[in-house]
C-alpha cells in the first residue's frame, strides 16, 4: 500500500513539474519577445513599408511583410482547404469499406507531414526553374499549399474518423448518397474539428520561413499581383535579426511580436466560431 501511495505521489510531482517547465518556457518566450520588441513596435512600424535606409535603422516599417504574410497564408489555407476537405471526406465516406487503402493514404500523408519545409521550398524552387518562373506570391502560395495539405487532410481525417458508423448508417438509410452524407452530415458534425484543422494549417503557413525563402523571395513593396515577389514576416525576422545594428535587431523582435499577435487573434476568432457552430454536434 505504501509503495502505491509513493508511486502516486511521485507521478503527481513529475506531471506537475513538466507542466511547470512547459508553461515557464512559453511564458519566457512571450515575455522576452515582448520586452525586446515592444519598444520598437510603433504605429510607424506596422503602417509603413521600409523607406530608404530602413535596414540601417532609419524610417519605415514592416507593413509589406505583414500584408505579404497574410496574403500568403490566407491564399494557401484557402487552396489547401478546398483541396483537402474533399480528400478527407473521400477517405471517410467513399472508402469507408477499404480500410487497407485508406491506411496507406494515411501513412503517406503522415510521411509528408514529417517532411521538413525546406524540402518543399527546394521542390518549389526546382519546379520554378523548370518553368522559368521568378520568385512570386503565386509560387509561394503553391509551395505552402503543398506543405500544409497533409496537415489539413490528416487533421480533418482524425475528426471525420470519429463520426460514429451509426450516424452514417442513419444518413444512408434515409436515402442519402455518399456525397450528401459527406457534405451535409459529416461536415456539420465536425465543424469544430474542421476549424481546428484550418487554424493549425494557418499557423504553419504564416510561421514558416524555409518554404518561402526561395519561392516568394523578398521585397520592400506590397505586392499588387500574384506574379510579384512578396515579403513575409518570418523572413523579415530572419533578415533583421542578422543585422549588426541594434535598432534593426530590436525591430526583428517587434516583427516576431506582430506574428505572435496575428496567430493569437486568429486562434481566438476560430475558438469563437467553433463554439458558435458546435451546438448541433451530437455527442456520442
Amino acid at each position: 500500500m505504501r509503495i502505491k501511495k509513493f508511486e502516486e505521489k511521485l507521478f503527481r510531482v513529475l506531471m506537475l513539474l513538466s507542466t511547470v517547465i512547459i508553461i515557464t518556457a512559453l511564458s519566457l518566450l512571450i515575455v522576452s519577445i515582448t520586452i525586446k520588441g515592444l519598444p520598437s513596435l510603433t504605429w510607424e512600424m506596422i503602417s509603413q513599408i521600409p523607406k530608404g535606409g530602413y535596414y540601417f535603422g532609419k524610417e519605415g516599417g514592416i507593413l509589406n511583410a505583414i500584408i505579404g504574410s497574410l496574403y500568403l497564408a490566407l491564399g494557401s489555407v484557402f487552396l489547401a482547404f478546398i483541396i483537402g476537405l474533399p480528400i478527407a471526406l473521400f477517405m471517410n465516406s467513399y472508402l469507408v469499406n477499404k480500410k487497407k487503402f485508406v491506411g496507406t493514404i494515411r501513412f503517406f500523408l503522415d510521411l509528408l507531414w514529417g517532411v521538413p519545409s525546406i524540402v518543399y521550398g527546394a521542390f518549389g524552387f526546382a519546379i520554378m526553374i523548370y518553368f522559368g518562373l521568378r520568385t512570386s506570391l503565386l509560387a509561394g502560395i503553391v509551395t505552402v499549399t503543398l506543405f500544409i495539405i497533409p496537415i489539413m487532410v490528416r487533421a480533418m481525417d482524425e475528426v471525420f474518423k470519429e463520426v460514429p458508423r451509426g450516424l452514417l448508417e442513419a444518413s444512408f438509410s434515409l436515402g442519402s448518397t455518399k456525397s450528401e452524407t459527406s457534405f451535409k452530415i459529416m461536415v456539420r458534425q465536425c465543424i469544430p474539428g474542421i476549424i481546428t484543422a484550418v487554424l493549425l494549417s494557418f499557423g504553419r503557413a504564416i510561421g514558416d520561413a524555409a518554404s518561402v525563402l526561395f519561392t516568394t523571395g523578398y521585397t520592400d513593396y506590397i505586392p499588387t499581383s500574384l506574379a510579384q515577389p512578396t515579403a513575409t514576416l518570418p523572413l523579415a525576422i530572419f533578415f533583421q535579426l542578422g543585422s549588426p545594428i541594434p535598432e534593426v535587431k530590436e525591430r526583428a523582435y517587434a516583427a516576431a511580436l506582430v506574428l505572435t499577435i496575428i496567430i493569437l487573434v486568429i486562434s481566438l476568432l476560430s475558438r469563437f466560431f467553433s463554439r458558435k457552430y458546435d451546438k448541433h454536434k451530437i455527442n456520442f
Partner: protein
Amino acid sequence: MVHKTKVKIENLNISIGKNHILKNINATIPEKAITVIIGPSGCGKTTLLKSLNRLIDLNPDVKTSGRIMIDNEDILNTHRDITEIRRKMGLLAQRPYPLPMSIYNNIAYGLRISGRKKKKYLNGRVEHYLQQANLWDEVKDRLNEPAARLSIGQQQRLCLARGLAVDPEIILADEPTSALDPLSSQVIEEQFIALKKRYSIVLVTHILRQARRIADHVIFMYLGEVVEQGPAKEIFENPQMEKTQQYFKGAFY
C-alpha cells in the same frame, strides 16, 4: 389472418473477412405485420437486418450470395440505384443517432434530399410525422433547437419520425429499445403496434418478453442459421425444434 409476403430471402450467405456470418438463410417476412428476429447475441440477427437495406455494403471485405426479393425484385442483384432501395426502408438503430441539426431539419432532411423543398409542405409533413411518432406535443415549441438536446427516449422517437418521413414500406428496427428506459421502450412498442397497419416491421431483439408482446411472425436464429420460423403463436406455444425450446426456457442467451 393471412399476410402477403413482403420480403423473401433465398439462400442468403454473407461472410465478412473470414467469418461466415449468415449461412444459407431462407426466410419470409409478411406484409403489414411485425416480424421479430430473435436469437442469442452474435447469431447474425443484426447482419440479416442490415443486409435488407444493404448497409452491410459499408463493411470491408463483404461477400454476399443469394437473393433478397422485396416485392418480387432482387435487391442484391439490381441495377437500380441503392439510395432508392434504401428509401423504401426506415431504420431504427440500437441507440438513437439524430442528425447534427435542428429537430425540424432532422425530419425535413429526408424530404429535402428527395427533392421536396417547399416550406409550407415541409411544415405540414414535419408536424404529421412528429405526431405519428408521438413526439409533437413535447417538441412543438422548440423545433429549431438542436436535436442533441432531446432526451435519449425522445431522440429515438425523433429517429422513428425521421424514418417515417421518407415514406418507407418497411421499418427495420435493431434492438431499438436497448438504450431506453422502460417507459420510453413502452412508447416505442406501442408505436410499432399502431404502425403495423401501414408498414411491414422487422424488429431484432434479444428480449424474449418484448418478442412475445408484439410479434406476429417470428424468426429464430442460432449461430448464423435460421432454426425455426412461423406465426408467433405457433412458435411460442409449440416450438418444434429442440434449440428453440431450450432458448425459450432460458438455457442460453
